[in-house]
């Protein structure tokens, strides 16, 4: 674990200011947009509903950012053979996933969780992010570049909230809702498969 943390630290150092993009998304873009909608006299929804609505679009995209930056080194850079020889790509990606989930956590405490919907939304984000990060990891490793997977992620996140049946089911559901749980299991299983396949391919050119 120590080795992975040390590697993560150097990797973050390499990302420089680009490392801050998800924080900008979670703590500037999302709150500002939510505030803008709340202040709009036409839409009278409560702040959390607006935040969740925007979150379905923004959070998954921002969650993949660090993974893309890391995989750029592994998939595209000169000398990536040396990184493949060293291994540990999956471990670093998993750490980045956890780091991302922790880094977005404070903003959820802004809202009062009276009916469990805030907790539910966070868990849904966790499941979607796990699925999407695994998908991104697999795509990048298979395609050996990050440009196309990044475009696919953007398209997925833009269209998913309006056309994806699964996300519609997840939306606004409460924690104990059976539909939500069933869909979450599908996402976790498929996501795990993505991570597993990507891990297998990540050690070779």
């Amino acid at each position: 674990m120590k080795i992975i943390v040390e590697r993560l630290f150097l990797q973050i150092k390499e990302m420089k200011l680009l490392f801050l993009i998800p924080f900008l998304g979670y703590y500037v873009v999302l709150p500002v947009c939510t505030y803008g909608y709340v202040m709009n006299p036409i839409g009278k929804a409560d702040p959390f509903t607006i935040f969740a609505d925007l979150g379905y679009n923004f959070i998954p995209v921002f969650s993949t950012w660090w993974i893309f930056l890391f995989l750029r080194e592994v998939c595209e850079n000169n000398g990536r053979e040396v990184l493949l020889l060293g291994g540990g790509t999956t471990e670093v990606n998993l750490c980045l996933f956890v780091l991302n989930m922790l880094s977005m956590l404070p903003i959820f405490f802004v809202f009062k969780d009276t009916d469990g919907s805030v907790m539910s939304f966070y868990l849904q984000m966790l499941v979607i992010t796990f699925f999407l990060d695994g998908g991104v990891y697999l795509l990048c490793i298979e395609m050996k570049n990050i440009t196309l997977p990044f475009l696919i992620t953007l398209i997925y996140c833009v269209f998913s909230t309006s056309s994806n049946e699964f996300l519609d089911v997840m939306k606004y559901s409460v924690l104990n809702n059976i539909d939500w749980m069933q869909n979450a299991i599908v996402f976790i299983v498929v996501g795990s498969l993505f991570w597993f396949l990507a891990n297998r391919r990540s050690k070779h050119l």
Partner: protein
Amino acid sequence: MIELQNVSKKFGKKKVLSNLNCQLEKGVYGLLGPNGTGKTTLMRCITNLYQDWSGDIRIEGKSIRKRNSQTIGYLPQNFGMFHELSVEETLQYMCNLKRISKKYRKDEIERCLQLVYLESEKRTQIKKLSGGMLRRVGIAQSLLGNPDILLFDEPTAGLDPEERVHFKEILLQLGKRETVLISTHIIEDVEATCSSIIIMKNGTIQTIGTCEEIKEAAGKSKLKPTLEDGYLAIIRS
């Protein structure tokens, strides 16, 4: 010692390596051959970077498929990652990848930087280095942890004459205790450093021999008895 046993590799339908067999003992081996003949592919097979190759490669008797490939020092054809990190941090990253204990890491980095004359640049960012210096960082990272096997893919490309002379000295030292395989197009480097030469053509090994034996091949073809002409005679035959 590296043993290749019927090593073959295909890209799609194209066979890039075809039933390679040889044994490489301690020493410096020069890998020569025209472009696209499979030199880099062979090196990548030895490091187990490809998933689908056939045959077996054994290092010190142990199959590379089971062996920890972190113990191989490999300098790829292009090396230039982590632009924002300093030379020292890049080598720390490499030590991390090679699982070198933190206790020895500082000394190991110092040793490798001294070998490639880069001690004074250890705090310089990678993006600020010249092409030759970057190459030397690549060489330094491959030497970290004293690996048993060293594979250098065109190590002297981009080095100035002084750096090349120095690199040849390093190679001669390394060849006394390790198996070193260098792929290059620069015949002078091979002649100055290699105890044996492997000549590849169309994915097969044409000849393995000493410089003198290669030169003899030139003599037989009524060419000048130089390594360059010997190489050409073998390639054209």
